[in-house]
């Protein structure tokens, strides 16, 4: 298992092998399985907020198609996942959007509200993210097959943890700060670090120089390195991403909590690293787990275990999607923000 913070030299030292062997394997994994170390970003530090949620209709409908089309065409929507089957037997579209605070955020939320009214009449649950995390657990993977626990033990472990949720630590989560102002240079730097946590300063410099026409100024190399180190330390949390390893089933777990104590969110966070690959977003009321699972995991059985968390103030539902869509958080919003800034200047 790769610790996302480790450089190749650290891994070689830890495993007691040469750096060139690590590099060889690393290159092969990059080539065959798209291995990257990406970053979860504290969007608040960039003047952005992550809005996430889901739209519901009783069955596949024109209204759901319309909101999906609108979401896909909106520049700051980073992910749109329609359901193919849901545990509640309804139809859903899940979305995440990284939106500039201010008029854009207000407009975006107003538009979401519009879909709850006639003629659409959809139920739209959305929230502003306060925490995000990414986990990858290659422990149950032997290189070709997954041995993922999806039996009574998993069910029982959730039941057992239920009684201790108030003392479960919330580690490994990136807390998103309140929105602060950020320069366009910072946005571009964050975009580079998001797609590659270990990106070199020369690559970032290259990107900044290519955007000079849009009024961006590349700082001196030394300053840039300092800015990058500072940003990584304060606003980026690395995670490993790897593809084509048999995680073909994608399940979204949606949790709505009306109570104060956030029991379900804590419990899901405590269980998150038992799954092979998971992205978690938690807001004030809602929590979402985006799970990638091997086909051997029975979605219905997994759902039956997860809905145990539901209670008088908590609703838990899951749905399957056949979309493999990747999050394009800053990739979508940064060009929009730069364009807007250029228009303002001119």
């Amino acid at each position, binding site marked *: 298992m790769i610790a996302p913070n480790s450089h190749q030299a650290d891994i070689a030292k830890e495993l007691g092998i040469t750096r060139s062997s690590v590099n060889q394997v690393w290159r092969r994994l990059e080539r065959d399985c798209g291995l990257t170390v990406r970053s979860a970003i504290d969007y608040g530090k960039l003047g952005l907020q992550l809005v996430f949620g889901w739209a519901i209709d009783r*069955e596949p409908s024109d209204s759901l198609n319309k909101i999906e089309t609108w979401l896909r065409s909106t520049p700051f929507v980073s992910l749109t996942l329609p359901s*193919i*089957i849901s*545990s*509640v*037997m309804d139809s859903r579209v899940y979305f995440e959007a990284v939106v500039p605070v201010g008029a854009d955020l207000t407009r975006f939320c107003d538009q979401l509200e519009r879909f709850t009214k006639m003629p659409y009449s959809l139920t739209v649950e959305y929230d502003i993210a306060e925490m995000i995390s990414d986990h990858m657990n290659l422990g149950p993977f032997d290189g070709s097959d997954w041995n993922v626990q999806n*039996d*009574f*033990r998993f*069910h*029982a*472990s959730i*039941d*057992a943890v239920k009684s201790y949720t108030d003392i479960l630590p919330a580690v490994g989560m990136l807390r998103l700060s309140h929105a602060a102002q950020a320069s366009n240079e910072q946005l571009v730097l964050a975009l580079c670090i998001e797609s590659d946590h270990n990106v070199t300063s020369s690559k970032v410099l290259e990107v900044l120089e290519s955007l000079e026409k849009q009024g961006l100024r590349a700082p001196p190399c030394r300053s840039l390195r300092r800015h990058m180190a500072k940003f990584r330390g304060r606003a980026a949390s690395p995670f490993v991403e790897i593809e084509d390893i048999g995680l073909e089933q994608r399940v979204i777990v949606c949790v709505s909590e009306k109570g104060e104590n956030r029991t379900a969110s804590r419990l899901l966070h405590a269980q998150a690293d038992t799954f092979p690959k998971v992205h978690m977003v938690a807001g004030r009321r809602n929590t979402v787990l985006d799970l990638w699972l091997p*086909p051997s995991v*029975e*979605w*219905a*059985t997994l*759902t*039956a275990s997860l*809905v*145990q968390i*539901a209670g*008088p103030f908590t*609703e838990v*539902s899951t749905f*399957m999607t*056949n979309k493999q869509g990747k999050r394009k958080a800053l990739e979508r919003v940064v060009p929009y923000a730069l364009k807007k800034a250029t228009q303002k200047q001119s």
Partner: protein
Amino acid sequence: MVHDESANLQIVTPYDSMIPAVEERSARFYLDAIRIYLGICSGTVTIENATKAVSLLKTNPEFAKNPFDPTVLPLSEAVKNRLIDNLKTLTKYNLHTLDSIKSAYTFAFLQDDCPIQQADLRILHYMSRNPLASLATASRELGNASKTISKSLQKLVERNGIRFSCLVDTSAFGADSYILFFRLNNREDRDRIEQGLAEFPFTKTILTTAMSEFGYAALLFPSTQEGHRVLRDSVRKLTGPLFRSTTLHEQKALGASANLSFYDGMKWAYPENLSEKLKDTAVSINSSQVPLLRCRGRAKGLMKTDFAIAAQLKLSSRDPPSLLAHRLRLKGFDVESRQVSESLQKMKEMGLILPYLLLGGMGLSANFCFEILCRPEVGDRILAAVGDTPQSTYYVSSKGIIIWINVPSVNQVEYYQAFRALEQTDGVTAVNPIMTITRVGSRSMLDLTRNWSFGPRGWSVDPDRLDLTQYLE
């Protein structure tokens, strides 16, 4: 103080030390069921003692919600090992809650997939079409020795958990079958509603899940106009305050089928033209195309013993008359093999029984129930297509059709979408689906009728007992 059925169970197993002591009576129900199953598997409990223990177990109110009878479940080494593992997990995590103990039981019965050899598959295929065929007939038609067929069936029962069951037209005995399909107003009421329905003396099966606001209760009660009126009025009173919507389906016909055409012994193929068949308006069916038992109403010449024999036959329809008679005698019926034999013959001739094969351990882990409110001709079309699914049971009423399908999880989305899409077709008012991870059990016909009277016109009770509001308000 423990003063209920648990204290009186005379069951000893080698695994007693693993079974936690719990106070809650409903949680003890599942632990007692586990103890009985483990006792039968390990040979420390005879089937006679197990049957007596189960009759005590049935006095636990939890039985009405989840009518598990460990004496009718196929004995399996894999299930036994899973039960032991799950008991160890309960101890390890110190889990004594009802939900975890119930899950320890139900998860153990989730079948593992077990491939079937071609020779066995051929026999199974034949038996799916001729569930009551004698070994001699099967031997003649398949060209195998009857001993080979017998061994093959035994293997399929032990390794795959297949069972032979049958549907019975209870209306011939003066007992009507209804399904109350409902949508909850508030999911928080689920436990209370489930409890109320469990206490209603005419409830055969309940299905509610934490995942859905839809649910149903299958009811069986003596057929009288007054009884029907009382039930309908009480359901009407509960619709609004307790249920967002209800549909009371009176059973007109029922059926079940197992279709192995799309199974190769390892995997199931998806019937690619299922969606087209479901929508094909040109399709019309007759009863010979689909296994269907039409409810004909009261029939003359039927006795209480016939009803008991039919009830016993449901548990295992290939049991010989001598075994059926033996099991009935354990339940207090004074019957001989010859009587059973004659009764079976009579009921077959009257068309009151529909035998079917129940598949298991063959990768059919996704279970759906669909209530389809539709015009009768659309119901016929759906019946014609539903036989393409690996395992199906269906229930026809004047308001539509309710179907249960067991399908492979790898194609669950395709099956779900094919049936769900019926909502868009002409003649269908609504499709209401429920998903479950296990098949729901059902209270036996004998347990339900214990306090009813049987006369020349069949079963009867005081119609006022059918007032559901007494249990749910």
